[in-house]
């Protein structure tokens, strides 16, 4: 019997491409022979737009890159601006943005796990449980800055306003509840035989391949490499904080899921430590001008965003807006190995692997 290879266009309109990702996939029956990622459907020219805006206005552009993790995008950009213009941030502002960033990491990892399980074919149940927890974080953000997704909370030198009094009891309640909710999720998912059978030993990412492709974030740690910028190259006040870094043993989809789940627990501990260390004071130093005019120069400060190493490379010509802004987007770089990871596996594994990489098309295309 003669058989034929089938080439299919999957995306940009497809339920599990997490936005507008497109793959041209060649199948032999159910087995993947080739997968060619095609990106660019959500390109909005954020980097170019940044050249037309003042340094403070660019913050709103960063919100819209990885829209599941606006706070960490803000943080990466603001750290770069502060380094460029030599602004020393106020202490309370830094603690507030660390709390915001860690809450954002919990929210982003919840989304990542939820949609990964959805790609596995669960009928939205784990996803909605996780989105419920994310909702509480978004409510906390709403208290902090009035916005839920596109926060624009950070400013050069700190944050633009202090969290209100009712924020702290709400945050404490969240920190009390969340570990139990995570236990529920783990009971439902971690030892589920279907999930184990679907994710274990699928799309194994080798340590060396991961390093050579400059993969970062949970995906790199799932391959067993202890590389977390909060620990290796501490920014803000992360050196005052102690936390553990979960590492995978095999580097397959199951490890990438487990890493995110355990990082949520570590993030909760970080927020608790921040709460112990934060002290009253101004959230932004008064000497920061309305229009930041950095001296001529360039800066790049990498941070550990939920998806990997995120950094803004800024070049200043001494004006009120960046001369050049380039984003090192972890989603884009983590996506580069998708083709090598999925070849030889089944159709269903393609989407699970894509989900486990956890890309955000807003960040890939910018």
């Amino acid at each position, binding site marked *: 019997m003669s058989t034929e290879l089938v080439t299919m266009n999957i995306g940009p309109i497809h339920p599990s491409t997490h936005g507008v990702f497109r793959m041209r996939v060649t199948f032999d029956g159910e087995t993947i022979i080739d997968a060619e990622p095609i990106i660019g459907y959500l390109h909005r020219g954020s980097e170019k737009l940044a050249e037309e805006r003042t340094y403070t206005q660019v913050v709103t552009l960063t919100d819209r890159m990885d829209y599941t993790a606006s706070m960490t995008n803000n943080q990466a950009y603001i750290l770069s601006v502060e380094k460029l213009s030599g602004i020393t941030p106020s202490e309370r502002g830094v603690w507030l943005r660390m709390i915001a960033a860690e809450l954002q990491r919990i929210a982003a990892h919840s989304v990542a796990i939820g949609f990964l399980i959805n790609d*596995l*074919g669960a009928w939205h*149940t784990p996803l909605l449980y996780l989105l419920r927890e994310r909702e509480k974080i978004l409510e906390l953000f709403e208290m902090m800055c009035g916005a839920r997704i596109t926060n624009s909370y950070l400013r050069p030198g700190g944050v633009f306003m202090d969290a209100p009094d009712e924020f702290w009891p709400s945050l404490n309640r969240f920190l009390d509840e969340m570990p139990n909710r995570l236990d529920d999720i783990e009971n439902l998912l971690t030892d*589920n035989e*279907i999930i184990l*059978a*679907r994710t274990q030993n699928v799309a194994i990412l080798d340590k060396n391949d991961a390093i050579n492709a400059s993969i970062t974030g949970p995906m790199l740690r799932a391959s067993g490499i202890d590389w977390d910028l909060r620990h290796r190259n501490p920014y803000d006040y992360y050196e005052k904080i102690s936390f*553990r870094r979960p590492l995978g043993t095999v580097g397959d989809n199951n490890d990438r899921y487990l890493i995110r789940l355990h990082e949520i627990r570590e993030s909760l501990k970080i927020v608790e430590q921040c709460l112990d260390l934060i002290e009253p004071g101004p959230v932004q130093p008064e000497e920061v001008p309305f229009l930041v005019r950095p001296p001529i120069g360039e800066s790049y400060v990498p941070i550990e965003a939920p998806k990997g190493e995120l950094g803004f490379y800024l070049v200043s010509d001494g004006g009120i807006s960046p001369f050049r802004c380039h984003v090192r987007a972890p989603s884009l770089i983590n996506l580069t190995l998708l083709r090598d990871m999925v070849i030889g596996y089944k159709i*269903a594994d393609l989407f699970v692997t894509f989900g486990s990489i956890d890309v955000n098309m807003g960040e890939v295309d910018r």
Partner: protein
Amino acid sequence: MGPIRDSFIFEFLYCHLSLEASCSSVRIINIAFIPESLSWISFSLTAFFWIFVFVNAALIGVLALIWGERRLIGKFQARLGPNRWGPLGLFTPVADAIKVMFKEDIEPTLSDKLIYVLAPILMVVPVFMIFPIIPYGTKTFLTNISVGVVFVLAITSINSLSVLMAGWASGNRFAIIGGIRAVAMLLSYEIPMGISAAGVVIVAGSLSLSGVVNSQVIPNAIFQPLGFITFLIASTAELNRSPFDITEAESELVAGYMTDYSSMKFGLFYLGEFMATIASSAIIVTFYFSGWRGPSFIPSEIWFLTKWIGVIAIFIWFRATFPRLRIDQIMSLAWKGLFELSLINVLVLALMIAIWPDPTGIQLLIMTVINWIVFLVSVYIFGKILSPNLTGNKIKKRSVIYGLD
């Protein structure tokens, strides 16, 4: 008029129309007016009436199931579910149905027109044929055909043909993959399903559904748990419901075989699928939950309905809980797991029936105990010892390690 005599509800209506001599004892009110010589008219009228009732009851059942499923899954997922239209959102499926009817009917250029139109019809029609043969109560059934079990197994597998036709005719690659998967699943799961049903037949000593119900002093779900579990899993696969919904796998194949269908053609697929769920649940109640049997202070129809809703709820529970299996894992599960388990069940039952062809109460209890031992041992062997290898993927529970400072 021989065959209709066993159906009380048919005869009841027939006798209120026909002046046939033998009917006088059945009649409650003397309103019959059709003479005996024209009995074919009364026969047809009765038949049309019951067809009308059964078809519409099935359709209303589908609406109720859509509502119930969405409502229950809403509860599972910590949200409200439909609640806008009517009390408790009861009219939501009605609104959905109206919406589906008024959608534009699209026929893809590449489609094979005749098969494309035929497929959704073939999805719905066979399922209607199951409802009349199911005994809903001591007297409430339309017909009692002597090969009911075989009939049920034959009819339920037709919808996979419809899925293949739909996938083929659409001229869409997502659809054809869905269709091919459906056939692969049908071939695999029909076998454990048939063998499990053989276990029921061996115990009942009859192929008719009434005979199956009458034989269940102990409900088969308790009497032969192994057969029940294999039959339940196989019928979940047969229904293409989660965790075996690979034919329409939303996250992979968009909508599988019905990707290119719209409007009422899509509506028919939807209808057929939900109706198949209802029909399969009724079959499971009949085979394994002793049908209408139950303490007599509650009418037998109520017993049947309660069990029916319970089994449907099990299917909804599956859908709310399980992620989907991969195609090769589904195949291994059928051939390396369910097939053997159902064979073990039939073997044990056949041996015991050979020793005690007509078991008394205490013998039935001994048989139940033996069945449970066989069930627990074989499920332990297959579920714990063999399962890491069943899927061809050696799974083991895993944890993370932590980076050293």
